[in-house]
């Protein structure tokens, strides 16, 4: 983990008056924390998008970058499984129109073209700084329904590997990772590693209030963080190191 670089990223964003970090910046923090993210690049226009998608290789995912859109998929800001340039052009045009329609005042900073991750079990790993207890780490099963199901486990951060595994075993959906009804066992060690690293990152980084990987896709071997978001502490909240 590259502490200094992460601290500088957070400081620059905070100095620039930002309240959140964009997905590419949040993923840069993950990369610096040695948490695996898909190959991606940031593009500004269609021509750029097509050129980069060729280099990355299809299938790709197209995502909008906007500080004003919190839940991208609710706003047609995510398009997955794009197989060729024709489809990319079509999806991108649609996305621009749909977003303009849904949130006309949103500031659009660009688009992400990202290598589509293979299917796996989707989990969420998040950290939040609690006013009373400081950094807390959460693990849960499954993407967007997590707020509904609340099948999650919490620990005070930082945590060690044993605590991380214990957290995973606590959630009801754990058999989906361990292998359920003939499905293969997923890489539990790798998930534990992400929990430990993310909990460590927030414990050592001032200025981040919430940081969340959702989803983290878990394969038989390895994991990949396909989306991430971060909320910064308001400048008054940042304590001197």
């Amino acid at each position, binding site marked *: 983990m590259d502490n200094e670089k992460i601290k500088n990223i957070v400081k620059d964003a905070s100095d620039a008056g930002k309240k959140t970090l964009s997905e590419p910046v949040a993923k840069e923090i993950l990369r610096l924390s040695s948490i695996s993210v898909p190959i991606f690049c940031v593009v500004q226009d269609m021509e750029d998008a097509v050129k980069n998608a060729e280099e990355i290789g299809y299938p790709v995912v197209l995502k909008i970058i906007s500080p004003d859109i919190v839940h991208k998929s609710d706003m047609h800001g995510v398009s997955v499984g794009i197989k060729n340039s024709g489809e990319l052009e079509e999806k991108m045009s649609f996305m621009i129109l749909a977003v303009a329609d849904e949130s006309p005042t949103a500031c659009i900073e660009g688009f992400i073209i990202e290598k589509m991750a293979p299917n796996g079990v989707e989990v*969420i790993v998040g950290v939040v700084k609690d006013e009373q*207890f400081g950094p*807390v780490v959460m693990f849960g099963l499954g993407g967007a329904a997590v*707020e509904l199901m609340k099948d999650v486990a*919490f620990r005070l951060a930082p945590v060690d590997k044993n605590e991380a595994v214990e957290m995973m075993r606590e959630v009801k959906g754990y058999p989906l990772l361990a292998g359920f009804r003939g499905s293969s066992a997923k890489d539990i060690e790798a998930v534990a590693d992400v929990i430990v690293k993310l909990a460590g990152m927030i414990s050592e980084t001032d200025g981040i209030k919430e940081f969340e990987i959702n989803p983290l896709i878990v394969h038989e071997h390895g994991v990949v963080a396909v989306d991430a978001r971060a909320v910064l502490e308001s400048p008054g909240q940042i304590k001197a190191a």
Partner: protein
Amino acid sequence: MLQSGMTEKSDRKKEMTRVSKPDFFFSPRTVAIVGATPVKGRISNIILESLRRIGFPGRVFPVNPKYSSIEGMDCYPSLTDIKEEVDVAVFAVPAALTPGLIRDARDDIKGAVVISGGFAEAGAEGITLENELRGLSSSVRIIGPNCMGIYDTVSRLDTFFISFERIKRPQKGRLSIISQSGSFAVTAMDELAAEGIGVARVVSYGNKADMNEADCLEFLADDEHTGAVAVYIESVSDGRRFVAAAAACSAKKPVLAIKVGKTAEAAGAARSHTGAIAGRYEVYRAAFKKAGIIELGGYEDFISACKAYGMGLPSARGRRVMIITDGGGIGVALADACAWARLQAAPLPKELHDEMKKTVPSYFAVSNPMDLTGSATDGLFADSLEKTMAGDHYDIAIVAPMWGPPALSDNLPKLIADKARKSGKPVIICTPGGEFTRSRMELFRKQGLPVFLTPESAVKAAMVLADGKITQRAPV
């Protein structure tokens, strides 16, 4: 006012008290009651009465300029007029007067118990007064305000201002209770007293202007008179310090806690799922786990846990439960409750099964739950308990005698208690029933056995005894 000219003295005192821990609250030699009165039924008079009843061995100084003596004791016009150093001064005077009185006496007293309400809980003016108190805590350690103070069977101090007629005091025991709520502490004490269960120290610290749960846990961790600690929490003052203090304590003795106000809304303006889900209670649970605290779900759990540990039962070495009953249905209900509580009521291993077959009449089905049926006798209960708890097959026994079978006698509780002691393992009694059954509960209590009316509460007690196993915990 005596304030001017006292700065030097107070500076010296400040250094003294800050280095010394607030342990003196638990072994005071002198206690002053500020605002003492001979008028029966008034708070400060009840406290004088409480001190007399518990037999406080040190000296008591009533303080009130209106009287020269109260109930045969010399009464002092002010704390400053007392010649000896006062370890604990109890303030039951209006909130607005309290900070000034403590300030004037800051060189004469080590600690203050501020019973009075009317501080932060009462609005803006009260917040100002409480901040004044907090400012004084560098020279005088303060418990309260808005609290009951201390009930201590070891030092024999009782500042609780509820009369003995209304609220019974528990005998001496090894359970200590610390509570933000005075009424919760009082109610738990009354329930435990009714169950014949003792306590070591009970502290109600109310608004926590100075002393909080972490200070108490730090003291109780090393207190040889305390075998287990139960904590009632509304909110903690300093999260990480609390976790560190509780972890240090739970490494030495079981720490149980109830957190109320679970359904409070999640922190506002969260933009991530994590932020939206991370309500107060989830974070408290995470903190409890880190600190090795046994979480209690509600009032009933709190009382069940206090009964189990208050009776001085040892923690269980594992989660294997043996159920012995003469009521088949209650036995199954207990087994169901065990499964829910992640306790294992597994069948008897073969060697034990064969041995039991020889012990009981041939028409008995030997299993777990062990159903002694309507043919149950005192002896069958005692033998079954002795044999199943010998060896390393089970960690806890729940014995559930239904009083129907005519052969069961009033000797049963003593026989069970003897075998329980011999086993060195925790044994819990569950006796659901009405008038006759309830009249027999006292027999078990007298034998030092915790007795429960429902399978669920008995199993809850078994669960906390299993959770209380002191193990190596992750560093905080």
